[in-house]
């Protein structure tokens, strides 16, 4: 993995500020737009409105209509024209308004975005970031709470990451934009307004790396995006019962960086995976498969999962039940410990 090459924006060097995850993304996008004139932001309502979540707030005002584009309403058009712009030498950052609306753009993602580098054997680069606010928990109507990340993780030629906190959000979006490969960037929309300290002088971890957030010895819990916070809370709650959970933020879903997970499982002997997405044929299936292979002799229990059910996302009054929460994660931990 190449060392991060991001220069720190000089204006804010050394500054530590308290920011929301949404604001961190906004600052990261701003830094990228400042650093490289080839970076474009495009999508529905990203311009004057600043996006329905205000992630692109103020960017069109400061960088102009040719850097921050309000596009016609069609996702295949957004991805498809971004591909042409990338061929022309631009680095488009596309916003898909909600997770459930990425599917009209699926064909361009699978057939062109993922394949052009391979098809051309490196002559055509695809430095495109597709930002997707994803997951549930915000009381929304249908199609606004989905977790489609596994579909992209299955596809060779794409890279898939997800941030879980403001600091990562700030750096990961910039690293994704700097990456010469197409990156599907999943943003945990129900965590947009969670805050933390952001010190822009601290070197970021490489983009495609997982990270142990909390050491522990009873069992390992790994998650990404919105479920990371849930798992950290679960670990805190478990402490009271004398259960010492190690928590890993996967951060990258394709390529997976399972080294830290293998190391952890070799120590704890137990792994629980948590995600909002349905479990069936998913990223968590892949991780379980690799872990049972790599840690076969270390596992004291099968790899278990706390995931969304294999149903369509339910009406929002039911989402609390659909989404694995602290209790469900701990229930699965208990089942793991019972082996």
């Amino acid at each position, binding site marked *: 993995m190449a060392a991060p090459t991001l220069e720190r924006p000089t204006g804010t060097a050394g500054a530590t500020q308290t920011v929301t995850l949404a604001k961190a993304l906004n600052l990261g996008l701003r830094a990228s737009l400042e650093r490289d004139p080839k970076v474009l932001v495009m999508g*529905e*309502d990203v*311009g*004057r*409105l*600043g996006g*329905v979540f205000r992630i692109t707030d103020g960017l069109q005002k400061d960088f102009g209509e040719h850097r921050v584009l*309000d*596009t*016609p*309403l*069609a996702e*295949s*058009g957004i991805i498809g024209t971004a591909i042409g712009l990338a061929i022309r030498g631009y680095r488009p950052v596309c916003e898909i308004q909600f997770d*459930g*609306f990425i*599917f*009209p753009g699926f064909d361009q993602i699978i057939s062109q975005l993922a394949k052009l580098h391979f098809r051309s054997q490196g002559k055509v680069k695809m430095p495109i970031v597709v930002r997707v606010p994803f997951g549930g928990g915000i*009381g*929304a*109507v*249908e*199609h606004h709470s989905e977790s489609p990340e596994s579909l992209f993780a299955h596809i060779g030629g794409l890279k898939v990451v997800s941030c879980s906190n403001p600091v990562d959000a700030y750096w990961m979006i910039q690293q994704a934009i700097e990456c010469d490969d197409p990156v599907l960037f999943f943003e945990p929309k129900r965590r947009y307004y969670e805050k933390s300290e952001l010190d822009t002088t601290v070197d970021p971890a490489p983009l495609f790396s997982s990270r142990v957030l909390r050491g522990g010895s009873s069992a390992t819990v790994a998650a990404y995006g919105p479920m990371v916070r849930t798992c950290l809370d679960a670990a805190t*709650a478990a402490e009271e*019962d004398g259960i010492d959970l190690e928590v890993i933020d996967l951060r990258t879903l394709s390529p997976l960086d399972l080294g830290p997970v293998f190391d952890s499982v070799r120590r704890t002997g137990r792994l629980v995976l948590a995600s909002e997405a349905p479990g*069936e044929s998913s990223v968590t299936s892949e991780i379980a498969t690799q872990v049972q292979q790599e840690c076969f002799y270390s596992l004291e229990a099968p790899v278990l999962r706390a995931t969304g*059910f*294999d*149903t*369509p996302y*339910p*009406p*929002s*009054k*039911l*989402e609390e*039940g*659909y989404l694995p929460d602290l*209790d*469900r994660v*701990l*229930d699965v931990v208990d089942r793991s410990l019972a082996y």
Partner: protein
Amino acid sequence: MSPERWTRPGAAEGTSGPPAATAAKPTREQVIAGLRATSEGGADLVQLLTPEGERVQHPDFDIDLDDAQLRDLYRDMVLVRRADREGNALQRQGQLGIWVPLLGQEAAQIGAGRALRAQDMAFPSYREHGVAWCRGIDPTDLLGIFRGTDHGSWDPATTGFHLYTIVIGNQCLNATGYAMGQRFDGKVGDQDGEATMVFFGDGATSQGDVHEAMVWSAVYDAPVVFFCQNNQWAISEPLERQTRVPLYRRAAGYGFPGIRVDGNDVLASLAVSRWALDECRSGNGPVLIEAFTYRMDAHTTSDDPTRYRLADEMEAWKLKDPIERLRVHLIREQLADQDFFDRVDAEADELAVRLRDFCFNMPDPPPERIFSEVYAEETPQIAAQREDYLRYLAGFADDAMAGGVR
């Protein structure tokens, strides 16, 4: 398009025209002027009732309604607006997660909705509360979607009204397929035939699905009316982010009629919709209608239109309010007395109260609803996940009873 045009395509179309003439790409200002022109009453806008409530003639479209029918249209619009405002208020009070207002689009929707006959089918987008009303869907039936208790509770088959479709454009293809079925079933070919009407917005016209629906419907002569409510905005994006030319013009490129109607004129909307549906019934579909109207409220209760549009625009459109113009007309022509207006207002108040009461008393769905009707033939996996989950929930109850912790 006259039959001769079909055999001699383009003869009089001017689209292959002189290069010198085509050479002038419009400026942004020209585009905007062109897109807006008819709001001031351009020659191609079908209007039967002016903003001042004056009944005018149109060379091609007319409608003959008795006084009671005119009053009914007024009542429809008032009740639908009141239900809409109540939905908005319920969201503000935390009773709904979101509300999608139709304010300003009552005439377009009631005109279209009242043109539909019992045997017809309608495919809404997510803002068609007015059409729902015309299909006999009680406004209370809409609340579940916005409260988050269901994804739409009415029966599309018995109401002739498909469930709301949120993914922009999808329903246009579904409607076209349905209309193909009407044709295959032999239900098309005379004035008592069946037809389908599909609703979508100006922004939706950019989606590939809407295009494919127009291609399909033309190729299969599907009896479908494409009813585009051009309310000038797709969330924060004005019409010129979607097109250079008025949307009704798209139809010519597919070989079927496209008509722009004053969407704030319920008479014109009704007249044009009826004509278009009759064309479809008779086997002359499809037809595109662009209802030129205005979204007088935010996109949804989550939206803040002050960030992207000027109050002036709103003020200008208030003068074209769809309800006000019919009210003035009814008064001016002495088709309704004060008593009528009072009764309608009272009815609206009752409706609002009923909606409110209903909303406050809506039960949350039970947890097993998460797993219900995923499939027609349930899989063992879904059954097992439900059982596991209910057992897990029961565990909490046990814990609670046993005074257990966590």
